[in-house]
């Protein structure tokens, strides 16, 4: 029999409903797996009591015949989501010990749907990073290792690296993530799991520690496409507390999953064929095209002419919004306060922010402050907003011809921790394929599609029309079924 911790979200839900095991057994199995996987550093805090309490409630609900959509399922929660009564730090020293008195809308929905929480997952500090090397609580380690015998610790991707590492290691069945420029999709690709960023506005941003408000969007990370659909359905929906929340119904994504792509057109954007892309990624992309053709889709070459400007546009807009959003961390209302002897208010702000933010966060705040400052606002910020309009228009025009786009998720497989952290610009280039969809606000997902020569996972990305998460999930399912990705990391971390 398959171990409980190997069953995905759907397997746990259905097995629990069928009476194969109790919710308490599920919670105990995962709490044990989490406690035994400290070597991954995937969690900032563990919350076994929350998972156990939800499991006991689920067992009572089953006995009473009152099952909820996620009854019996424990989840990992990225530590960017405020959870009432449980520390929320955004992996920062600034918010060390911060215990929200309110619940984020997304976690509120998940708990109301019956889910329990195994703990708060580590991430790049304030979600700024692509490798999980900027957390104030130490690097997350990927469960994967290269097959060269060197055992170099690898990056799980970022910023949702605690989520991706924990799912790949099977210490959580599924987890929340957030994606500002690829923070769900790139870590999913690095660790051989599925992850979907829905249309901007699908999931409420209320109670999620803000990074770049016009880009931030919560999403689902899980072992496979079906589990992603189930989790996303439970997370999505209109929220009057978020003025950018979309007042549209949440479709039944899981029930409508279909890998039959007859009549669908899949666009292949030529601008994603970048210089220096490893041959293995190019080959996988070609393989993906064949898989979608096999599923019945027609393949169409398309052009997104402003693709190469997406990354520099992003690195103006995201830091600009971050510098504004992170102004709230000043040592007055919550979080760290550093008050040097005899300091005045201004000096307290400056000392607090110097002590509370890590180097990458400071770097982005300074860039953002610079591009928004008098004299440079139009040259940088307004210019970037205009280029963003052109990038969004590229997608609109492509989606007049095709239903979804297929691209690689990341320009490389997972790199070793420390390998790219010396050069911020080189790190930023890791998001080259994920950032354009973020700027356009369209849904996009990564599905595991193969292994490279070093035995590391590679992902393919599907990008869809606004609000067409179903089209994205369906194309993802078609790839998943044909890729037959079953590789798992060797368990070296368990005690």
């Amino acid at each position, binding site marked *: 029999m398959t171990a409980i911790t190997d069953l995905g979200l759907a397997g746990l839900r259905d097995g629990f409903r069928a009476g194969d095991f109790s919710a308490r057994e599920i919670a105990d199995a995962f709490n044990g797996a989490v406690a035994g996987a400290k070597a991954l550093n995937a969690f900032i805090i563990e919350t076994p009591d929350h998972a156990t309490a939800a499991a006991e409630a689920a067992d009572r609900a089953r006995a009473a015949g009152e099952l909820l959509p996620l009854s019996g399922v424990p989840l990992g929660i990225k530590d960017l989501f405020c959870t009432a009564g449980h520390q929320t730090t955004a992996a920062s020293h600034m918010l060390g010990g911060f*215990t*929200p*008195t*309110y619940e984020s809308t997304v976690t509120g929905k998940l708990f109301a749907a019956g889910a329990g929480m195994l703990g708060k997952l580590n991430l790049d500090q304030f979600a700024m990073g692509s490798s999980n090397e900027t957390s104030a609580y130490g690097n997350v380690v990927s469960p994967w290792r290269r097959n060269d015998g060197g055992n170099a610790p690898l990056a799980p991707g970022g910023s949702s690296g605690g989520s991706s590492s924990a799912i790949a290691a099977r210490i959580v069945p599924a987890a929340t993530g957030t994606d500002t420029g690829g923070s769900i999709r790139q870590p999913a690709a690095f660790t051989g799991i599925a992850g979907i960023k829905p*249309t*901007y*506005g699908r999931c409420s941003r209320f109670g999620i520690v803000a990074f770049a408000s*016009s880009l931030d969007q919560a999403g689902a990370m899980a072992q496979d496409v079906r589990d992603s659909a189930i989790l996303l359905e439970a997370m999505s929906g209109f929220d*009057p507390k978020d*003025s*950018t929340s*979309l007042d549209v119904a949440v479709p039944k994504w899981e029930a409508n999953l279909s890998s039959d792509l007859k009549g669908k057109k899949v666009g292949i954007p030529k601008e994603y064929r970048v210089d220096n892309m490893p041959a293995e990624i190019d080959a996988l992309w070609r393989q993906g095209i064949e898989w979608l053709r096999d599923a019945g889709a027609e393949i169409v070459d398309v052009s997104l002419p*402003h693709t190469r*400007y997406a990354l*520099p546009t992003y*690195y*103006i807009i995201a830091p600009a919004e971050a*510098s504004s959003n992170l102004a709230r961390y*000043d*040592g*007055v*209302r*919550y*979080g*760290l*306060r550093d*008050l040097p002897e005899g*300091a*005045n*208010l*201004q*000096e307290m702000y*400056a000392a607090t*922010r*110097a002590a509370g*933010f890590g180097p990458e966060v*400071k*770097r982005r*705040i*300074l*860039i953002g*402050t*610079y591009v928004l*400052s008098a004299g440079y606002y139009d040259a*940088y910020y307004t*210019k*970037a*907003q*205009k*280029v*963003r*309009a*052109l990038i*969004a228009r590229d997608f609109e025009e492509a989606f007049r011809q095709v239903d979804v786009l297929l691209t690689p998720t990341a320009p490389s497989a997972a790199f070793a921790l420390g390998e790219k952290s010396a050069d*911020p*610009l080189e790190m*930023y280039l890791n998001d080259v394929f994920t950032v354009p969809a973020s700027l*356009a*606000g369209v849904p996009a997902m990564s599905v595991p599609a193969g292994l490279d020569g070093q035995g590391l996972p590679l992902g393919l990305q599907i990008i869809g029309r*606004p609000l067409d998460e179903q089209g994205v999930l369906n194309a993802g399912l078609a790839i998943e079924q044909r890729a037959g990705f079953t590789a798992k990391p060797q368990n070296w971390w368990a005690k």
Partner: protein
Amino acid sequence: MSVDAATVRKIASLARIAVTDGDVEAMVPELNNILGWIEQLGEVDTDGVAPLAAVIPNHQRLRDDVVTDGNIRDKVLANAPQAEHGFFAVPKVIE
């Protein structure tokens, strides 16, 4: 354009982040490198293009002008580094 040490000090001051001489020295080349790379946007012809603010069309919603919460002072102050007499406390601002 090129960022020098004085500019880094100025933006750090605007951003309310204390910096040491060592910080400034490290940040000058880093910020120049990133800003130099961003300069490539100058190549893009954006004449007549309206800046994009809202990425997915959405309406500004107005709610009824009524109080929807309140009386949660203790919750608001629960995470304050220093709270006194029901207020956030800060160093003296006015002599």
